[in-house]
């Protein structure tokens, strides 16, 4: 045995070492190449010529100005159009998520025809020609059979010129039934009609207001024109000019709006009207109201006698007798000191404004409550003045009279209400009862009432019974699922876009923009299809719509705009200052000299608007019989008599706190649906960008959540993040509970916009609170109510 190391050993050692080194090298390299082989590294983003084009956002009624960046044929970024007076370069998250709608994997790829039954549809792809012919032939058949009035068009997001085009088509065709999706603002709008006699949309000069009382209006979460509101909010709080506007949010839930307000007043749900009248009590007893305005410009403040000598109760005595501070405090659960302080501030800071038009109507008996809130505006003298309630100026387009008068009423009339109106929610009843006449065909344009109305299920049943249903839709949503023919609609970036003045915006705006990129999947603009159908129908219908395409119609409309000889194309701040200086003294300095130039400039800059100040024009603001703001609504009195009812108590024509719904035994909690900005309007659930950010305050993503007060949750043994059942008498749904200190102990909240059952699987998450709500309509105007449903919540 040798104690020496021999050469072979050395060789072995060397070989081992080499092998080891090699192996380790190979391993490292191997892992790397292995990794690369398993998942390829680079995602190459193709380049191309860059372009910025203006467009108009299509995801809510506001129609903000977009600036879209395209690389080659791809749209890669949406930004705000800095020239657009509504958005001024800012945008809300919905608008930005538009790109995801454009590129959505679940978009309809071709027109579809249902070859199965309504209940279990079988979809077959058909050509556009076939699709349009199917619809047009159906319409021709109906018209030939004298059933033209039985055609109903339901428009989703209302637009200005497109809606005008469709209305023109329908009136030429012979149908009165142009229906739009209801808005929660309807209640306030009704109150404005009753008290101001104005049936045009109201607008608010929020920028100049000094004190804002918002009665549950979700001002920063999708109300009105969200971006312009956020801009105004930013201006209220500009560090340089000081914070001169106080914004008080009055609502039961500590919403994002409440959190961002200067003050949040929490109250018992549904008692907003009482609180408003309680504040009126303070204003009246302390003499803080605008006495001159009330004296000269209002009716029914003091007790009065009518022509027949009959004495009537006035607003003052009503408030003083029935809404005393302590009673109101009792009713609303708001401390009397708070009411007193806020009312005093409201009285001392002018112009002051009270907002009561919820996007999602949450006031039971809403028009009366809205009248109560609106009465505060009259007490503050804020009707038709700067910083107050204005009437939205009309756009200078001619509404063409129907070529022949249609002798049929609208199918969704509500004749049994005191205050008759039109309610889309009535349509299912009309279809199923075949009254006032049978509905033969329903055409839907980007409208999804089955999902977004409280009586969606009734809608579903009614559509199942409708002989013909066609839907212009980007997705195969719940309502499109019930159609015979589905026509894929392009997104806003792929079509001629236009939008009128946004809701509650105090200026007249008309946006127009050409398509940014070519339409995907052969989608065709509904307006173009309507024109094509008109051509197919021929005769007076074709004659009423002598346009090759929507672009031609827009061009013609711009000629009308030019003829109005006012306003200006969207421009920079400097241009606007200049225009403002001139406008104030009556000069108009257009940048265009003919309609063609106006058209080109509008296409390039995004649109036209009239920045003129409308405040101070009383006749625009108030058109009641008395030419005054009416605390006591004579209009309502007239309607009541016309409806053949006994006028009865004066209080029926004065603002009042409506009765609150009672909790049913076994259902101890009140369910209030809520709106969140990313899913405002109940849309957007199919877009990942928006799903990711829907509930930032409770860290909720991709799922609906039940907001429940921690104390209540503790009592029910519910932990944060736990799955629970929410059950109403109508149904139940499973959702994740989120303990949120901002929820009132006796109230639970569910966000709207969740729980789709069709469309994109991304939207089919969470629960739709509307499916839990009991159908309720206010007694005055038949407006659907989304509050007042009581539920129980238990662990699952």
């Amino acid at each position, binding site marked *: 045995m040798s104690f020496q190391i021999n050469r072979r050993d050395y060789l072995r050692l060397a070989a081992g070492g080499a092998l080891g080194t090699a192996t380790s090298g190979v391993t490292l390299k191997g892992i790397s190449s292995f990794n690369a082989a398993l998942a390829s590294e680079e995602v190459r983003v193709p380049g191309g010529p860059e372009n910025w084009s203006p467009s108009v956002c299509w995801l809510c009624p506001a129609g903000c100005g977009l600036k879209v960046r395209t690389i080659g044929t791809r749209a890669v970024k949406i930004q705000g159009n800095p020239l657009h007076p509504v958005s001024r370069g800012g945008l809300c998250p919905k608008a930005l998520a538009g790109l995801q709608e454009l590129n959505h994997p679940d978009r309809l790829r071709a027109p579809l025809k249902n070859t199965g039954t309504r209940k279990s549809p079988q979809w077959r792809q058909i050509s556009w020609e076939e699709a349009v012919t199917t619809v047009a032939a159906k319409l021709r058949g109906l018209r030939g059979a004298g059933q033209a009035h039985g055609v109903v068009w339901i428009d989703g997001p209302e637009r200005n010129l497109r809606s005008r085009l469709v209305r023109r088509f329908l009136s030429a065709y012979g149908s009165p039934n142009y229906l739009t999706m209801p808005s929660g603002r309807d209640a306030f709008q009704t109150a404005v009609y009753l008290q101001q006699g104005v049936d045009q949309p109201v607008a608010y000069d929020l920028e100049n207001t000094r004190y804002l009382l918002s009665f549950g209006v979700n001002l920063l979460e999708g109300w009105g024109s969200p971006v312009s509101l956020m801009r105004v909010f930013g201006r209220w709080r500009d560090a340089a000019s000081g914070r001169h506007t106080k914004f008080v949010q009055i609502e039961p839930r500590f919403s994002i709006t409440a959190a961002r307000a200067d003050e949040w007043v929490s109250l018992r749900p549904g008692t907003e009207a009482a609180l408003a009248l309680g504040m009126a009590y303070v204003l009246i007893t302390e003499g803080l109201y605008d006495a001159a305005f009330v004296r000269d410009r209002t009716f029914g403040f003091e007790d009065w006698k009518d022509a027949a000598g009959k004495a009537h109760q006035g607003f003052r005595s009503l408030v003083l007798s029935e809404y005393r501070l302590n009673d109101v405090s009792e009713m609303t659960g708001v401390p009397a000191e708070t009411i007193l302080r806020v009312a005093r501030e409201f009285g001392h800071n002018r112009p002051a404004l009270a907002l009561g038009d919820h996007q999602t109507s949450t006031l039971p008996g809403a028009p009366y409550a809205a009248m109560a809130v609106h009465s505060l505006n009259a007490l503050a003298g804020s009707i038709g003045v700067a910083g107050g309630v204005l009437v939205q100026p009309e756009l200078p387009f001619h509404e063409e009279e129907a070529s022949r008068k249609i002798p049929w009423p609208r199918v969704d009339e509500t004749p049994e209400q005191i205050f008759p109106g039109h309610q889309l929610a009535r349509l299912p009843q009309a279809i199923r009862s075949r009254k006032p006449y049978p509905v033969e065909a329903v055409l839907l344009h980007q409208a999804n009432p089955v999902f977004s109305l409280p009586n969606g299920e009734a809608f579903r049943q009614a559509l199942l019974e409708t002989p013909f249903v066609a839907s212009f839709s980007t997705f195969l949503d719940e309502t499109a699922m019930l159609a015979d023919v589905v026509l894929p609609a392009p997104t806003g970036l792929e079509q001629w876009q236009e939008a009128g003045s946004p809701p509650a915006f105090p200026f007249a705006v008309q946006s127009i923009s050409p398509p940014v990129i070519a339409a995907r999947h052969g989608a065709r603009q509904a307006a173009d299809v309507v024109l094509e159908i008109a051509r197919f129908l021929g005769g007076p219908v074709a004659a009423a719509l002598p346009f090759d395409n929507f672009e031609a119609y827009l061009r013609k409309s711009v000629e009308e705009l030019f003829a109005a000889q006012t306003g200006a194309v969207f421009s920079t701040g400097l241009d606007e200052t200049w225009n403002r200086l*001139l406008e104030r003294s009556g*000069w108009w300095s257009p940048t265009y000299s003919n309609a063609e130039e106006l058209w080109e400039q509008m296409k390039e800059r995004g649109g036209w608007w009239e920045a003129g100040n409308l405040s101070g024009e009383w*006749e625009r603001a108030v058109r009641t019989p008395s030419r005054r703001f009416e605390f006591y609504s004579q209009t309502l009195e007239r309607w009541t008599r016309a409806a053949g009812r006994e006028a009865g108590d004066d209080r029926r024509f004065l603002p009042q706190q409506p009765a609150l719904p009672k909790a049913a035994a076994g259902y101890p909690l009140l369910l209030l649906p809520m709106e969140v900005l990313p899913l405002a309007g109940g849309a957007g659930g199919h877009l990942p960008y928006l799903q990711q950010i829907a509930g930032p305050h409770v860290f909720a993503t991709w799922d609906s959540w039940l907001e429940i007060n921690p104390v209540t949750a503790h009592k029910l043994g519910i932990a944060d993040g736990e799955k629970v059942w929410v059950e109403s008498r109508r149904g139940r749904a499973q959702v994740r509970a989120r303990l949120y200190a901002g929820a009132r102990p006796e109230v639970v909240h569910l966000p709207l916009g969740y729980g789709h059952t069709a469309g994109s699987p991304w939207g089919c998450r969470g629960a739709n609170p509307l499916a839990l709500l009991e159908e309720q309509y206010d007694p005055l105007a038949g407006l659907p109510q989304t509050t007042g449903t009581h539920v129980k919540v238990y662990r699952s």
Partner: protein
Amino acid sequence: MQPSLSAAQRRWKTPALAAFLCVPLWFAVLCGTATAQVRGGAYFLPGDAKAGMQTFFDKGCARCHAVLGEGGRTAPDLGRAPGGHLSAAEMVAAMWNHAPAMWEKMRAQHLPPPKFTESEMTNLFAFLYSVRALDEPGDAERGRKLLSEKRCVDCHAVGGQGGRAGPDLKSWASYRNPVSWIQAMWNHAQPMEALMAQRGVSWPQFQENDMADLMAYIRTLAPASKGHVYLRQADSEAGRRLFREKGCVACHGIGGAGGGHAPDLGTRALPRTLGQFGGWMWNHAPAMWASMKAQHVARPQFSNQEMADLISYLFAERYFERTGNAARGRRGFEEKGCGSCHRPGGVGLDLSPRRGGGGSPIPVATALWNHGPVMLEKMKERAVPWPRFATGEIADLLEYLSARTNP
């Protein structure tokens, strides 16, 4: 080219300004974007008012000064103060007189005085001059009172209430421009005068903002159905033509040229804003018509736009001071002590003819801003007081300087 014009143009010596004269320009008040729609011909108000506004904001003037409420609030609103009409020369005088105090304030706030090129100053002047002619919305409440005070309501109904003799004033509510009112009153004044004489109502006189207040009140009555009627930007060249064609020139002179029987319309004593001008026209109307009658001149009728063009022409004319006197200017130059420095070999820039000191307001204003602070320092060192110029003195001085440079 009219003699008065060539006289005016002779003053524009600086090449930069000569270039401006070649650029077709709008009348300042109405120049809007001042791009398209130029119909040729020479224009008299130099500069682009809108570009001037850009300068006003860019150079930081708007940090302290506002124009008609747009801008800062720490310094006077240049659209309103001083109250009367200012010609270009008077604007220079106002600037000059206030400059030391202003620079002092700016130093306190660490704001360096901005520097201007002559073209910027030209635009700035155009801007300020034109903005000052604009009317601001009046006080509706006061307007309402005026209506009864001036006994308008005796004949005119306002929204259905009042007299029936004249038209309901509400029908004018949608007119947003005072010129529209001037035009309407002008065209309808004859029957009205007759009626008033018949009823023994005296011709009402409108002072200062009366007219604007009146309009503001009538405006609140605008019917819901009607839109607003604005006037389009006026064309002062067309106005000049009208001034001749409609025969105004037969009686009215401008800056001493032409006319003679009637008031000179180039004088600075006329009101500052268009609305006030309308009031002034109204006030003088009976006298004028009497004189016209005496001379058998037909009363011309104007359309809305024609009236706008005409008035724009009249306002453009008044940009220049035509009353400058070289001899008085020379006296002033010496008395104020300018000559002690601004002479050949002096401490200041030689303003003698050979050196080309310049005689128009623009170079003076430009020089004031660009060299003024230094000059003020030098003057302080020498204990020379900063000279102040009364109304007209600057015009004289400019006339003197330009006369020297352009004998």
